[in-house]
Structure formats: C-alpha cells, structure tokens
C-alpha cells in the first residue's frame, strides 16, 4: 500500500469518508481574516515595518495587528499566555465560530478533534530572568549558585505557564468544549501542515467528524548575530534575511534570481476540517476537499549549510501527479539557498514544470509555523475566485523552465498542492481539490 493518501482514500481506513474544509481564518501583517488577506495578495501588498539598523543594513519584520482582548473567550487568560498563543487562540476561535463550532453546537464534543502547531519558547519569554542573570555576575564571572539561590525571589509562576507550548490547544479546547483526539506539534514551518494532516486522518479513520487545525507564530525575536560566521542551519543569516540598505521597506522576491532574503513575520491560520457528509448535512460551506497528503523527513543534517536536496519535500511530493492545469504553492521565502534547494527538490520529482508555481511569502514574509498552513486557506480562495495572486516581485528565475508569474493569473484547474519544508528537515504536502456539487 502506498504511504500517501489520495482522494477517496478513506478506503485506507475501511471507510468511504472524505475530508473537506469548511472555514478558515488568517491573521497576518496584511490584516485579519482570510478574505482581507487574499485581497491584499491579489493587490500585491506587503506590510513590513522597520525593526532595527544592523551591521548589514536595516532589518524589517512583519507584525500582526495587536489582538483585541475582547476576542479572547476569557480575559484572564491573557495573563498566562504569550503573544503567539494570543494570536493563535483568536484565529482558532474565529475560524470555529464562523461555522458554528463551539459549546452546545449540537455536535458531540468527543467527535471534534483539535490539532495545533506552535512556535517554541523564545528568548523574549525568558526576559524575566535577565536581571537576575545580570546580578549573578561578580567580577566578570557568572555565579550559577547565586542565580539558583535567588531565582525563587524573582520569578513568577506565570512565567512557567506562559512558556508551555500547548497553550493554544488547551485554551481553545476549553473555550469551545472540544474533547476529542488532539495534539500539538512543534515541527517548525511544517507544524501547521502536520496539524492538517493528522486532523484529516482523524476524520478519515472515523475518530472525529470535525477537526480544528492550525498553527501560530510570533517570531520577531530576531536573534541576529552580526558575526557573519554565525550560521542558521542551511543558511547564513545574511543569506536568509532581507536587509534594506537605503532604509526603504525591503522587497522579498520568492524564486527570483535577484532574491536577497526574507522578512520574518508573525501570524496564525486555523481551518475547520469536516467529514464531507457531515458538512453537507448541516449546510456548512465547502471550500475545498483534502485529496492527497504526505509527510516525510529530510534524512540529512537539519542544519546543513548551502545547497542540498531537501528529501523531505522530495518524499512528500513523490506520490503526486501534478497536471499542467494544477497549481503548486511552494514555501518560496526569497532566501537564496532555501529557494534554490526547494526548486532542486521539485526538479527531482517532476520531469517537466508546465504547472504553475506560486509563493505568497513576498507579501506575508516568512510566517514560520503559520506560513504553509496559510497557503491552504489561500488555495481555497484561488479555487473560489479563479485567480492566482502574483508571486510578489518575481521577474525571472535563475533556473529556466519554471512557470511563475509576477502578475495575477487565471486559474481554472481543480487541484492545488501546498508544500512545506521545515528547519528540522520535515516535508509535508497537502492537496486541495475543488468539490463539484
């Protein structure tokens, strides 16, 4: 049996169940809600703000609107969560309530599952400890005993609760009374796609009828080392991030030969997945069907430098038969090696490149854990509107033969593939198909 799931592969689970998307919500620097975000993509907008001046030039980042306290189900919760949790919880609640998923909604709470992805604890989250570390230095030497002795006087238990990485999963479950299968993934940029994958499996296998899936990230902890020798995995930061030499907002150029890096952004995206007949019975809108998914590891060093083939992407795409009318939404963040390596993976899988390739990162920036899953929400809007937004700032690829456009293009196909690659080497691909009524 193949390890990938194709349309109708509810049969893998001995059922004829299928999974559709009935709701989505994107929170990004471009705005709140899937419709607003998609319109911004069509208009080729970006919204990057200056973070600081660095050794290499001005550094920019993408920031969401400040979440409103009133969007939380319980204001007290704001004291024990971090910003990434806040953004994620609000996106999840908005996606769910839009299609009537919540307390006393008439659906058995044990038949609703929730799968979240999350960014990890950041150095910002640890800032309450900084002043004590500072005090623990005497005559230029750090004294760990001093730190240990005085830690209890300085730290609030709230800090520990804030650093729990399953906060979104917990608070969303409590707010919506979700009691079914659940978990929380920490798979970097593929966390969101992983949550979609498991949510769909949960429905296909008959364990759930509805799954709330998504991921969030609040990156702008820039952890930038001005030392050019500092490496981040496959990329030197200098090659990874986009710097502006003239102080104007930088241009992120996915797949373009003149690409010079990405802008780190924060955001969140949640989707409601539902068993197709369940959705039809209750009259929920059907935005697309999940008809293929596959997950793989890279199997090579997760922190490799420079040019290499990301086998996680190769593996996750290996079961696809992309047609020329289909669309592939790649990760394409505009970082030199990452784009190049991603295209190398595609070249290994596909003999020809006659299908269209698109990236939203020129507008969103690199939304990390929230990036790839946002592309699924974007895919549903492409199916609905028949319009593919421009791959921002794209003029010419450094490898010939790729069908990428810097303009709005029509889309009349039925299938869109969304693929992602994580820093730890994981690759994941999800296919969204048009549902013909």
């Amino acid at each position, binding site marked *: 049996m193949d390890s990938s799931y194709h349309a109708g592969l509810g049969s893998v689970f001995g059922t004829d169940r299928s999974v559709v998307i009935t709701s989505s919500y994107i929170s990004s620097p471009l705005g709140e809600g899937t419709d607003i975000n998609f319109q911004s993509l069509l208009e080729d907008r970006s919204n990057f703000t200056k973070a600081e001046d660095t050794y290499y030039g001005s550094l920019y980042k993408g920031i969401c609107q400040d979440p409103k306290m009133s969007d939380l189900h319980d204001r007290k919760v704001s004291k024990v969560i971090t910003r990434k949790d806040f953004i994620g919880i609000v996106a999840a609640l908005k996606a769910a309530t839009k299609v009537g998923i919540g307390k006393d909604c008439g659906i058995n709470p044990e038949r609703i599952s929730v799968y979240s992805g999350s960014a990890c604890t950041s*150095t910002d989250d*640890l800032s309450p400890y900084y002043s004590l570390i500072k005090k*623990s230095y005497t005559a230029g030497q750090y004294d760990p005993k001093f730190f240990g002795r005085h830690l209890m006087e300085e730290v609030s238990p709230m800090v520990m609760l804030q*650093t729990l990485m399953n906060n979104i999963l917990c608070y969303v479950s409590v707010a919506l009374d979700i009691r079914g299968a659940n978990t929380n993934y920490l798979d970097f940029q593929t966390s969101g796609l992983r949550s979609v994958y498991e949510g769909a499996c949960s429905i296909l296998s008959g364990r759930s009828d509805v799954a709330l899936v998504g991921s969030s990230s609040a990156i702008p902890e820039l952890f*930038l080392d001005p030392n050019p020798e500092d490496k981040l995995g496959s990329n030197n930061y200098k090659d990874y991030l986009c710097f502006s030499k003239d102080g104007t907002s930088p241009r992120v150029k996915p797949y373009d030969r003149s690409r010079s890096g990405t802008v780190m952004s924060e955001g969140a995206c949640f989707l409601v997945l539902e068993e197709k007949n369940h959705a039809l019975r209750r009259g929920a809108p059907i935005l697309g069907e999940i008809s293929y998914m596959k997950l793989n*590891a890279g199997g090579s060093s997760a922190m490799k430098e420079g040019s290499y083939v990301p086998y996680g992407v190769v593996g996750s795409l290996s079961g696809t038969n992309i047609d020329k009318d289909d669309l592939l939404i790649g990760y394409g963040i505009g970082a030199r090696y990452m784009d190049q390596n991603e295209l190398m993976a595609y070249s290994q899988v596909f003999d020809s490149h006659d299908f269209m390739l698109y990236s939203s990162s020129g507008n969103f920036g690199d939304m990390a854990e929230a990036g790839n899953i946002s592309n699924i929400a974007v895919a549903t809007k492409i199916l609905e509107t028949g319009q593919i937004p421009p791959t921002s700032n794209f003029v010419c690829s450094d490898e010939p033969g790729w069908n990428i456009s810097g303009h709005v293009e029509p889309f009349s196909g039925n299938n869109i593939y969304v693929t992602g690659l994580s820093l730890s080497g994981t690759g994941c691909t999800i296919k969204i198909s048009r549902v013909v009524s």
Partner: protein
Amino acid sequence: MSERTVCVTGIGIVSPVGNTREEAWKNIVQGVSGTDYISQFDASQWPTRIACEVKDFHLDKKAFHDGSLLNRSNEFGMQSAYEAMVDSGLSDILESKNNPIDPYRFGVSVGVGIGTIAPQELATLLRGTDFHSTDDFKLASSLEKTVNSKLLMKNHPGMFAGWLASRWNLRGPTSTIHTACASSGQSLGQAYLQIKRSEADIMLAGGADSLAGELLLAGFCLLGALSTRNDEPARASRPFDRDRDGFVASEGASMLVLEEKEHALRRGAHIYAEVVGYGETQSAYRITDLPPDGRGVKEAMEDALVQAGMVHSDIDYINAHGTSTELNDRIEALAISKVFSSRGCFPYINSTKSETGHLISAAGALEASFSILSIRDSVIPPSINLDHPDCGKSEYGDLRFVANKKLNYPVKVAMSNSVGFGGTNTSLIFKGID
C-alpha cells in the same frame, strides 16, 4: 483501519535509576528510588531541594557524533534512541552496505519538553551585551543581537526529531509533539497509528525531557506542585499514598522501535510485545487541573480498549500516570475505578513514578517501556512509599495496588496512562506475544 499489527522491537532508556534499559529495569523491579538532593545548582534556599537527576551520564560517541549540538534532554534522547536501535538490530542493518530498509518507510515521532535555554548559557550570551544597562528592555534588545543561532537551535525542542532522522538517514513521516506530561504517550500512539495506516513500516518513537534545571523547577516549585519532603528524598514520590505532598521533578528519556509485525518477522527481529490500542482525549477543563469526575482520563482508557478490540477484563496491569499529587492521583483512581469496576476485580496498578519521579514529556514513553518489560519478565514492579493508599476505594472494592513489593505475575496485557497539563490524556495497551 487496516489489519497491520504493530510491535515493539527495541527499547532504550536513560533514567534517574539507570542509564541503560536493563539497569533501569532491575532497579525499578527492586523498588530503588532515583530521588536525591539537587546537584546541578544550589537549591539550598528553595522549598524543594530534591529531584530525580540522571547520574553519571556520558553520551556515547557512537550514539551521536557531536554532543555540542544537543542540549541535556536531547543527549538523553539520542543515547536511548541508540540503545533502542542497537537492541532492534536496525542500527547494524542501516549501517551495512546492503541496507534493505527503505528510508522513506522509516519515521520518527518524539515527545519533547519545553526546551528553554539554561541560565548558564543565557549568561554566556548576555556577557557580550550592554550588560551595565539597568533597563531590562535594552538588555533584552542587546541580547537579541548577540545570540548565537546554533545555540538557539540546539535548544529548540523541534530539533531532536531532525537529529534522529539525520543520524540514521530516516526519511519517513516525522513529528515532534509537546502536550506536557502526555507528550511521549502521544508520540508512541501516533507512531502506532502511522504504522497501522501504512505511512511507515518502522517508527523510532518516544520522548526526552529534563525538568531538573532551575528555570522549570522554579516554576513548578512556585505552583506548589513539587514535594517538599526534603529530609527523606527516597520517600518523597508516593503516588496514591495518603501522605503524598507533590511530585518529584525528574529527567531522562526512553525511545522505542515500533515496527509492523510482518516486517519484523521477515528480518527475524526479537519482538517484545504488540501495541494493540491507543486512546487520546482532551479534558477541556483547565490547563493545570482535571475535571473532578475523571472525564477525559476515563474516555482515553475506554477509547484504547475499543481500539484494541478488548474489554476491561483483558487488562492485567495498569502503569498509572500516578504523579504523587493530590489532584491527579484521586481523579485518575476515580477514572480507573469507573472503567474497571464492573468486571468484579481490578487489574493490578502501580506508578513507577514512585521510583523515577516525573519525567514530564518523557514519562509516557518510559512507563510504556516498563509496562512492556513487565510483560517480558512476568513481574510488576512495586509502587514504593505506598503505605496508606487513600484513593481508589469504591463500592465495587479497592483498587489493587502493587505496594512496596514487586509482584510476580504473568502479565499478558498492560495499559499505560498519561495525563497532561493542558488537558491531553492518553492510554496505550500492550499485549505479549503468544
């Protein structure tokens, strides 16, 4: 779902009671406590001065080439993964010239802890900053300019799965899970599902964590969750006992090789047990509390029984989550009582946290390993310090705890429970090979 059967062909353990599978198991069966005074930092002024630390640990170079890329918990994880891979015979096979294993059918599923940077490392980073600033915001900003990205990646919990895949060139489905104390119960459960669903033939699965560092320990200390029985470390962790006063923080790892049974048989692998059921629920109550009626914990056990095609009388032994906190022990005992009361007598129950303390994200995998070894050796380790059981009494009779002395018993089917901060509950069922 398909009829594929999942079995366990390798087990590795690094724990406060031993840094190998057999050493840890021998001590668990003998009821040896891993709790002692905290040695990693000066806790002399803390309300809690005890923990279950891993002792005399050295990462084997054969396990991983560069320990500087791993934080403390990932070192434990990598060492236990190496032991499991050697135990399963797969390490040799993968390194042989004619390796027949398809790397795209061999995946990784791990449960991990929070993974914060150790204060010592933060201090090193801060040394290069505007250290004399009295403004913490400025201090934080200057830190961000000097952080070494490699150090951050070393401490990112998502990296462990990547390193495992990298170490053995594994290209199958890979996941990193964090649901607090349920993390590695979930990692095993999801690996089981992935083999059942034919996404992989082999999964390297389990968990690693270290709660013995000062930042997390301080947090739990302030929450009042830790035992303060500082004068009697070995008697501090006492799940289900009347005199319990909190859990004992711990660290370690356990990794297991899960394999499709026909695949294992074809290569002549030793099979410990089959994984036959996995239940997973969400309590949807509060982040740190359980619903008083045992909701969620009860349904996880029932779900696992349904998945296994078993009834409650099939279960011989439950390795309970049993943390030694008032709330968990009472509610878990109530949930067990609700699930099993109608069978007439209860399965035998213990909590090996009485010896190991609470490994948080690694607890589920370690306790699953002990459950499987109970089946192998027909022995149930004791719940030590269980002098006055005060929960699990019901109109149907009392729960059958294996208190203070091991019990020689032919365990055919064992259940292992995990209950997490955040509301996630899991239950795994293992069955011996006929």
